[in-house]
């Protein structure tokens, strides 16, 4: 299993500012994933972060808005830039792993962001 921590756990920000979310995993992993969970909507993948290469963004998400860093195999950051109220959401960090014989994804506790 993997234990994932995220900082901050929550924040209230003003529109136009930026927030960087940190994700720390207790083991080395190749890929780290960043998700967004908005009320009433499904968990949506923002991007996949590989160590040593550029992050891969899903349709609808761009690097200028959500820059990602992946300096080593246990750590990643996601920045939400030039925030607007529409960015209010829970942001989750995730890694893949195996539980028993089953592939699974482990998730961090999430960062709850409110943009005013």
């Amino acid at each position, binding site marked *: 299993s993997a234990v994932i921590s995220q900082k901050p756990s929550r924040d209230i920000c003003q529109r136009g500012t930026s927030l960087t979310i940190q994700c720390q995993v207790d083991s080395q992993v190749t890929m780290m994933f960043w998700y967004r969970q908005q009320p*009433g909507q499904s*968990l*949506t993948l923002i991007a996949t972060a590989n160590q040593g290469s550029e992050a891969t963004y899903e349709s609808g998400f761009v690097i200028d808005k959500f820059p990602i860093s992946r300096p080593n195999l246990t750590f990643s950051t996601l920045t939400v830039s030039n925030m607007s109220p529409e960015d209010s959401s829970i942001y989750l960090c995730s890694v893949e792993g195996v539980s028993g014989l*089953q*592939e*699974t994804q*482990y*998730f961090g506790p999430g960062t709850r962001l409110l943009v005013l």
Partner: protein
Amino acid sequence: QKEVEQDPGPLSVPEGAIVSLNCTYSNSAFQYFMWYRQYSRKGPELLMYTYSSGNKEDGRFTAQVDKSSKYISLFIRDSQPSDSATYLCAMRVRYSGGYQKVTFGTGTKLQVIP
């Protein structure tokens, strides 16, 4: 049309009831079917994982997949207040070359009343 449809609830049941949670999907390429449980202020955690049509049982939980109808279900027997959480269905497709995509439902919020 969304690839995965899930009733958001909320669903409120008395303790001891049998709970049925359901998802439908439109992408016939989905190969693996999962149920995640998410407690308030926590990240989702894997509850059940199946890859074929039929039933899979784990304690009080049974996952059911019907690929012909593109329909999956999670049954919870003898529901407990500790089962109160949001349940998300998820479906995975693995493409040639190793790329894979996981699509989540919106989640169903369940409350079990003591």
